[in-house]
């Protein structure tokens, strides 16, 4: 099943994590999150892993695509 994608590129802290949390509340099986810098990448990963999700990271040019799954 393809995951829905959340675009949080260019958002200030802590919006990437906050929006990821909201997305996961609505889609508890997982989402993809597109982030624009390494700070957001690491923050979103740390948050998702703390909630028991697995996180895979793909480099996409200047951005990173995080696949957050159960």
């Amino acid at each position, binding site marked *: 099943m393809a995951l829905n994608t959340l675009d949080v*590129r260019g958002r200030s*802290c802590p919006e990437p994590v906050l929006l990821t949390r909201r997305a996961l509340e609505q889609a508890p099986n997982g989402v993809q999150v597109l982030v624009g810098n390494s700070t957001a990448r690491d923050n979103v990963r740390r*948050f998702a892993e703390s909630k028991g999700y697995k996180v895979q990271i793909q480099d996409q040019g200047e951005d990173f695509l995080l696949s957050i799954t159960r």
Partner: protein
Amino acid sequence: MSGRKGMILVGAMVGILAVALVAFGNPVNMGICIVCFIRDTAGALGLHRAGVVQYIRPEIVGIALGAWLMSLKGGDFRTRGGSAPFTRFILGFFVVIGALMFLGCPLRMVLRLAGGDLTAVFGLLGFTAGILVGVAFLNKGFTLNRTYNMSKVEGFMFPAMQVALLILLITAPAFIFFSSEGPGSLHAPVAISLIAGLLLGAAAQRTRLCMVGGIRDFVMFKDTHLISGFLAILVVALIGNVITGNFRLGFSGQPVAHTDWLWNFMGMLLAGLGSVLLGGCPLRQIILAAEGNIDSAITFLGMLVGAAFAHNFGLAASGAGATANGKVATIIGLAVVAAIGLMNMERSAEVTLKGDVSIGS
């Protein structure tokens, strides 16, 4: 270095650097203070004429350049901007008005606590309250919207400005003001301040150390990552102060501080709230600006202008206490910052997920 251990290590390093800078000549409990040092730099440039707080602080230059070099090395340097730049200028302006009411940025607040300055406890309470209000805004959908990519040249302007400040410091032309008395006259040798700044900037860029992020993330996400750096600074600077004889527990007679508990609280309430809406404390704004974030560079200018206003119009507090003008400015600041918070709510607190599904929350 991005893990918890790295964060604690960097916090410890900041604590040691702060204590060492005092030993080398910086004012007591002011080894590093982002807002005070921006204020001193504003004075040196003649943007305000308070004779006791004028000096181009090499720590600021070092922090910016250290973060810039580290971001180039790590591939984090990216020029972007366009996330409400003028709103951020205003927020930066009032963060400084609040911080100068308290007499210190969030980092100096921790260093004051580490020196036994109990008046800073009211600052910490105000700061925490400000963060809680800011978190409420964030939870209601506050956002200054996203940044966009910009030309690389634009991103190099902020580090270039810092190099220019360094040149002005070293060449000391007649139109630059240097305090001969007061806190502005107390400083470590230029090379030591610069190196300390470079180390701090590089380490803070790598770990994303942020004084406002610590309490904010703990409250919002039960995330202890950033707050572990905050606590490490406190503990290590406290031990360092005890060793160097600069620890004096009490309320009265503390260096560059006043005992007016209400206005210590109110000042940091404003600084904490403003910093949450900016997405990071004054230190973090410099790091972000150095990484190519133009909005944070604009915030830096807002802080510089705020510092100039604070001393041109008698808004800054002093050891004697808060001024009437400063109290008015702090109240105005709280009103403006709260209005910025209220007027920048996303119309719906709805998360849009691509894949055709729009999900309410």
